[in-house]
Structures are given as structure tokens and as C-alpha cells.
């Protein structure tokens, strides 16, 4: 019987080599075209790269942040249109969870469940997560929403066609359609205030300093101090949105 010998000829060597080199070159070329891969990385490692920290243990649910946001950004004073709002989560003794947010918390909260039934209750302030792989900017068909080099997700109201695609894409419900202009609208981390060296309105107004923002690239910044000292978590980490809003004392009930 003839013994079959596996031979690796010179021809095979060149063939495999060419395939490997070609494959690496092609994938290197493709990676620069792949929008999802680009969005995953901060566009620069130096310079500002904003992150936000919220301490749930400190929030007293006064809703002043939601009111301040509406004042600063001239948002319609009607429920349903919020860039920043507060939710009260109440976990009852039987394990069910009740979430309430009357007018975003602006008028204050009244306890709707008697004390005996409550296992745990806490306030969660919500706002745009300013994701680094934001689903909302990826779906925009016209390039009207984008991430700046500082890591802030902004909208170009003059270019938005109001299709509402991004509103559906945001897993945190942080976008709404402005009924006056018909375009999508969202938290800008008070970009106009940041630009002038001022704090965003909700951070300025928080009476218990439950909110912190800062430069994630700067190891000495507030936000890095906050992240080191607390057990922080983002909402829906499984979605891999690259959220930059970190909560202290976040529980799995919060969605």
C-alpha cells in the first residue's frame, strides 16, 4: 500500500502565506470602515472625555434637577418631555417593584405605598448616558446626531429630519421629539455651559451633591475619584452601549 505523505510544498507555503497576509491586510482595511468598531473607542485618549457619576444613596428625590433642566433648556413645561428626570423605585415585601415618576419628580414625590409593605425604596435620577457606542447615533440616517471629541452626544437640530429612529434606538428612553420644532431632542450635558466653564444645570442645582461629572481621561478628576471610591455600575451593561453614566448603589431592578 502506498503511504500517503502529507507534504507541505513550497507552492503550499506561498499559497497559505499569501492568504494570511491578504486576510490581515483586508481586515485592517475593513476595521477602519466598520462604524461600530470606530464608535467603541474614544476618539482620543488625551483631552476631555466626560463621564457622569450619580450617587443613588444621596438622592433625596426633590426633582430640582428635572426642573432646572427644563428651565435651562427651555423645554415645554408639560409631562412627557424630559431630558433629566427622577424615578422612585419601591420594592415591596412580596418582591414586586413599583416605579413611579409623577411629572418627572418636579412636583415632589408622595409615598403611595404604606410603610409596612415596603422592603426598600430609593430614588434614581435619570438622564442621557452619553454612551461611547451610542445606539442612537448609529441609527441616524442623515448624520444629525453625533458624539463630540469630548464624549458628549449632541443633536444638530438644523439637520434632523425628525424621523424618530433614534428615539426608538435609545435603550434608556432619553430622547423625545420636541413638539415645537418636530426634531429629536435630548440632554446635551449643558454643552453651552461646559463650553463657558460652568457646571451643567442639574449638577449646579443638586442640593445633596448626588451628581458628579468630570473628565475620565484625567486621573485626578472628581469622576475618577468617585469611581474609585464607590461600587459603580451602568444601567443595562449587557447592551454594550459604552454608557458613561455610572451609578453608585445601583440595583438590578433599575431599568
Amino acid at each position, binding site marked *: 500500500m502506498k503511504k500517503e505523505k502529507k507534504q507541505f510544498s513550497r507552492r503550499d507555503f506561498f499559497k497559505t502565506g499569501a492568504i494570511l497576509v491578504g486576510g490581515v491586510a483586508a481586515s485592517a482595511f475593513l476595521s477602519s470602515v466598520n462604524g461600530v468598531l470606530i464608535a467603541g473607542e474614544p476618539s482620543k485618549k488625551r483631552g476631555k472625555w466626560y463621564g457622569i457619576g450619580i450617587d443613588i444613596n444621596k438622592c433625596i428625590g426633590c426633582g430640582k434637577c428635572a426642573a432646572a433642566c427644563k428651565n435651562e433648556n427651555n423645554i415645554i413645561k408639560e409631562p412627557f418631555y424630559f431630558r433629566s428626570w427622577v424615578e422612585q423605585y419601591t420594592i415591596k415585601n412580596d418582591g414586586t417593584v413599583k416605579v413611579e415618576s409623577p411629572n418627572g419628580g418636579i412636583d415632589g414625590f408622595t409615598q403611595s405605598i404604606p410603610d409596612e409593605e415596603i422592603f426598600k425604596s430609593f430614588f434614581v435620577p435619570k438622564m442621557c448616558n452619553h454612551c461611547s457606542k451610542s445606539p442612537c447615533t448609529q441609527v441616524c440616517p442623515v*448624520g444629525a446626531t453625533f458624539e463630540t471629541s469630548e464624549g458628549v452626544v449632541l443633536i444638530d437640530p438644523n439637520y434632523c429630519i425628525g424621523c424618530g429612529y433614534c428615539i426608538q434606538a435609545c435603550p434608556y428612553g432619553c430622547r423625545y421629539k420636541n413638539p415645537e420644532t418636530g426634531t429629536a431632542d435630548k440632554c446635551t450635558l449643558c454643552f453651552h455651559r461646559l463650553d463657558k466653564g460652568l457646571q451643567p444645570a442639574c449638577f449646579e442645582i443638586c442640593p445633596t451633591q448626588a451628581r458628579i461629572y468630570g473628565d475620565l481621561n484625567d486621573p485626578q478628576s472628581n469622576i475618577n475619584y468617585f469611581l474609585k471610591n464607590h461600587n459603580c455600575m451602568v444601567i443595562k451593561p449587557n447592551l454594550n452601549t459604552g454608557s458613561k453614566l455610572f451609578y453608585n448603589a445601583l440595583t438590578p431592578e433599575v431599568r
Partner: protein
Amino acid sequence: MPLHIKRLVFTFVGLLVFFIILQQILKPHSFGVQGHFREDAIKENTQRALQYAGKANCTKCHDSIHAEKKEGYHSTLNCEVCHGPGLKHAQYAQMFEGKELPDSLTLIKPNERKDCAICHQRNAARIKILFDTIDNTMIHQIDAMEHNLISKKTKKERRCIDCHNPHQP
């Protein structure tokens, strides 16, 4: 080259040129400089009007209240938490020093029971919250609609500020 292929090539080249010209006309200025968006939109986002002045601006004139407040429990609160946005108020005061403020620029003075209740109404979610103030106490929780509502002397309804100074509660 056969004539019909030549015609086809000309048509395609013509369409391509037309497309490039059209794109150049329709594409907004500064689109695609930093990414798939208008670079000018960043600048436009920074040009919106401000509303909140910040604590430093308030203390320029109201320094006595600031000094009073920093001794009390409300030391961590900025003025605009209760009094509302005050940049226009501050700007007017700076521009026309000593002049009377028009009514539209006077800031709100929340002095009803419900205004204090926004933070101090008893709520299960609020009870155990510590906050960094002079002695790290818990936030004071009361039933705002019942707490010492009727004055024993005058038999009339009282407001919170009749007993507590909001700047130094």
C-alpha cells in the same frame, strides 16, 4: 469599441459627474470634517442662552445671606435651588447698579408649606439618607402638611418659615 457600449460609458460618466456636482451643492458646509455630521453643529450647541448664574454670582451682592447660610444645615445648597434661575437677574443688577429690579426679574421666594415639602416631606426612600453637611445628619423628615400646622397662640395656620429661617433652619 462598439457604438452602443460607447454610449453607455458616456451616459455613466455623465451621471457620475452630475452626482458629484449635486453632492457638492447639497452637502452642507463643514459636513464630514470630524465625522458624519456638521462640524458647525458643535458651535451652534454652545451658543444657546444660559439661565443659571451659579452661586459665585449670587454671593457678589448677597454676601450677608451667604455668610448666614454657610453656618447652617442648608450650607450645601446653591441659591438657585430654591430661588430659581437667576442669570438675567444677576446681569441686570450688574449692568444697572443700584437701580430697582423690574418685577419680571425678581426671583421667586418659595415660602409655602409645599415648597419645603419637596425635600422634607416624609418618604420611605428619603429616611436613611445621610448628607455631607456640618454634622453629617440625616435629612430632616416631617409630615409637612401636619407638622405644627396650627399656632397655639393665634389659632391660625402657620407656614414653615414662620418658625424656621430657610437660610439657617
